[in-house]
């Protein structure tokens, strides 16, 4: 049913790397509506049956381009996609290519909340700046803000949009985090664990 609105369906988690799925994915399984699909086993039917989609920074971007039409149709049904990583392929019309911060210094890695968003509500964004005193794990660049998208978090003195939410002209929503995967469980920063269930809920259109 390619034109049915994505008000029901599965939470599709694309497992790209070899080995155990990430903690966010195993948390998702507890919801009862999630399906983890090994990337090489993906088919158009997975997109057709999905309400939400989460991908990691290890996504095979060349492989996903083979599903560009399926992805477009998924978004046009009102699907939601939480994307982690650097965009180096134009999966959807309107997306730009990742821009790294050249020779990033500490001041270039300052994080600032630019607009409130339910995934980040009440979470101190600068708490993501450092891990054991080292900055840069959250991200070191940005995926260009598509036209009409809302910047959520900025990086550096120019507040480059490291996190944004975009409502596509066709109706779906994409959230882009241009860095290492957020929402990891069990890491040194407990705020990641706070983000995890919210990411899943947002991806399924629950807020």
């Amino acid at each position, binding site marked *: 049913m390619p034109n049915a609105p994505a008000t029901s369906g599965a939470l599709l988690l694309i497992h*790209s*790397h*070899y*080995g155990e799925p990430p903690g966010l994915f195993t948390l998702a399984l507890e919801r009862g509506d999630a399906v983890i699909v*090994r*990337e*090489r086993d993906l088919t158009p039917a997975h997109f057709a049956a999905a309400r939400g989609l989460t991908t990691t*920074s*290890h*996504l*095979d*971007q*060349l*492989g996903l381009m083979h599903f560009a039409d399926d992805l477009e149709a998924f978004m046009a049904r009102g699907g939601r996609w939480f994307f982690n*990583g*650097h*965009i*180096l*392929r134009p999966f959807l019309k309107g997306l730009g290519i*990742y821009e*790294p*911060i050249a020779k990033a210094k500490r001041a270039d890695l300052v994080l600032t909340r630019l607009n409130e968003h339910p995934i980040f509500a009440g979470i101190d964004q600068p708490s993501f700046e450092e891990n*054991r*005193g*080292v900055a*840069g794990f959250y991200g*070191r*660049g940005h995926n260009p803000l598509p036209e009409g998208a809302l910047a959520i978090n900025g990086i550096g003195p120019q507040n480059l949009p490291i996190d944004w939410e975009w409502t596509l002209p066709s109706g779906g929503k994409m959230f882009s985090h241009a860095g290492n995967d957020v929402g990891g469980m069990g890491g040194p920063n407990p705020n990641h664990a706070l983000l995890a269930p919210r990411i899943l809920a947002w991806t399924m259109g629950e807020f």
Partner: protein
Amino acid sequence: MSILVIHPGAYYHIESFEGPRYAHYFDKLVRPEELPDVRLEDFNVVLIPCRTPADRMEPHKARLRAYLDQGGTIIATGESDSQLFLPGITFTPQPTNFWWWLTPGADLGVRIAKPEHSLFRHLAEKDVTWHLHGWFDVPEGAEVLATGDTGEPILYIDEVTTGGRMIITSLDPFYHHGSHFMPATTRFLDGFLPWMRAELDKEHTA
């Protein structure tokens, strides 16, 4: 064409192989799934980069072995579980100490084991030092180029297991370089890739 690169398609692979800094070192990029359509024997080197999902390479295990046995060269960098698709590799992973350098004067423990090797005209110890991911029990007769904190091999050349040559490391330079995060990995590739072209791709440079 003489250097073939397996292209698993993650952003760090795209940046490393297609980005202007190194693209000229790679004559053909091939998806793991497209390997059956490529004549490996046409290439002097097959490079399998860091974080290539092993289950995308396992179906091609026999072809890689046949390529080696007819005299080919395979380079495999770290975090790819190469032991699952290449012969004669015994790997022991170790927990990664991401923080070693925060201690003033700390030493990760990487050592160049064979400084007279031609690779080390291109690389210094600091260029092979970022993280340790594990070590190898190498076959007798293999040439150990670098070792980790326990003195075990982390970079070696095996010309004894097959009829060809395998250059195996647990270092993961493409992942970090392609992530724009960790200058040592870019320095490693700045030295390793010219060495690869000059020493392993003789026909190309002749």
